[in-house]
């Protein structure tokens, strides 16, 4: 029953080891799944319907082995998913990903938006901080009652939005002045390495998908 989960774990853990990010991977995915893990464990260990083999008794509540087994199965799946996502995040540099997509035909403007979006949030947060400071210097009370603080929303959100719009205008002009809107592909300075082995691995994974799905559906893998 743990078969598929273990399979994926192997597909995640071994690459992580090779990439040298195993400890970070384990830490991050364990941290991510901790809240769910706790509730899944508690609910299933103690309240699994059809649980018979008693492990522990706390008053009227019984921990069953079947429940534990079920919980572990679920957790393994969750870990597999979170592990895979974390692995992707840990070994991929966004710039490389975007460049590779561009090399394969995605429009450079789209790639730009993907890259630039990452930068927007911290920039906006910083801006909101600067604006809050300016308004507090004019007596805006951010330390008083909730009602008073609510009144401070417009003087803070207003300049954030207006300023962002003004900034976008300037940025657009600067980008256009550097040929950003030229249709077609642009020359790339570099692109991530690709090797025959990687291509092979990608095809293998792609083909494994329908095979595994079929195996699961026919009950051969449970």
């Amino acid at each position: 029953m743990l078969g598929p989960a273990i399979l994926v774990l192997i597909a995640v853990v071994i690459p992580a080891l090779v990439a040298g990010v195993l400890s970070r991977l384990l830490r991050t995915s364990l941290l991510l799944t901790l809240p769910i893990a706790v509730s899944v464990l508690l609910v299933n260990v103690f309240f699994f319907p059809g649980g018979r083999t008693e492990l522990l008794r706390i008053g009227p509540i019984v921990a069953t082995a079947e429940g534990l087994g079920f919980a572990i199965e679920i957790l393994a799946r969750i870990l597999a998913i979170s592990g895979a996502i974390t692995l992707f995040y840990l070994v991929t540099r966004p710039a490389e990903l975007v460049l590779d997509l561009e090399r394969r035909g995605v429009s450079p403007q789209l790639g730009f938006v993907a890259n630039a979006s990452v930068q927007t949030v911290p920039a906006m947060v910083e801006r909101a901080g600067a604006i809050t400071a300016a308004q507090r210097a004019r007596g805006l009370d951010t330390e008083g009652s909730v009602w008073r603080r609510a009144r401070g929303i417009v003087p803070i959100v207003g300049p954030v939005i207006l300023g962002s719009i003004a900034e976008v205008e300037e940025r657009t002009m600067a980008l256009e002045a550097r040929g950003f809107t030229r249709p077609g592909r642009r020359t790339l300075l570099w692109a991530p390495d690709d090797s025959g082995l990687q291509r092979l691995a990608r095809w293998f994974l792609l083909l494994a998908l329908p095979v595994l799905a079929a195996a699961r559906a026919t009950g051969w893998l449970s």
Partner: protein
Amino acid sequence: MVDLAVEGLSHVYGREVRALQGVDLRIASGERVALVGQNGSGKTTLVRHLNGLLRPSSGRVLVDGVDAARLTVAQMARRVGLVFQDPDQQIFAASVRSEVEFGPRNLGLRGGSLRQAVDEALDAVGLGTEARTNPYDLGSARRKLLALASVLAMRTPVLVLDEPTTGQDLRGVERVRSVIESASSAGRTVIAISHDMRFVAESFARVVVMHAGRIVLDGPPESVFAAPAWDRLRATYLEPPLAALIGESLGLGSTPTDEALIYAISSS
């Protein structure tokens, strides 16, 4: 009348960035002080301590003898008005008038006295005829003057200006100058951060030079821009005004302003 004092003030951003290292400074009520230095020297950090936006990592800030740590920023705003460098970081109202009303309204002004404070501030910066204009219909230089008016209207005993003349044309600079003059004659303390050494020499009685989180020079323009201080000044990548350089070269002693130089030449 508000005296300001900063004692052993240190400020660290995060865990490592030492923006201020044990700064001691006293500014008496009514003084006109220019704060100069490169970006990163600590000037902005220092002035943000004066109105409570930043709190010391160590040392203390005293406003009229009261430890600023005991006051909220809103309370400090009553005593120390700070005009930021970028007007677009504060403008949110649909009209010039509403924008200027924001500050004094927060301090409790209403009705006739509010209107008067706003009118005076708008006249002082030359925006009297633009009360109903949308701030974004003004050019960026006049928006800066708008930001200045919005703090002027708060009538704080201390006025702190962050780079008031940057981006201003001749008339804008003259406006700023006259605002400083009138504020000063009304007994208000004026502190300005500036990169314009000539403006500093002409409008301020005291110049505080900062570098790497410390004060390296503090005195009237006659001493700060005089030849004996040039090495220290240049070590902070600042140049004395041309009048000072020429005055020294002609052997006329310290002539930090154009007027002083011409006077010295005439009398020699």
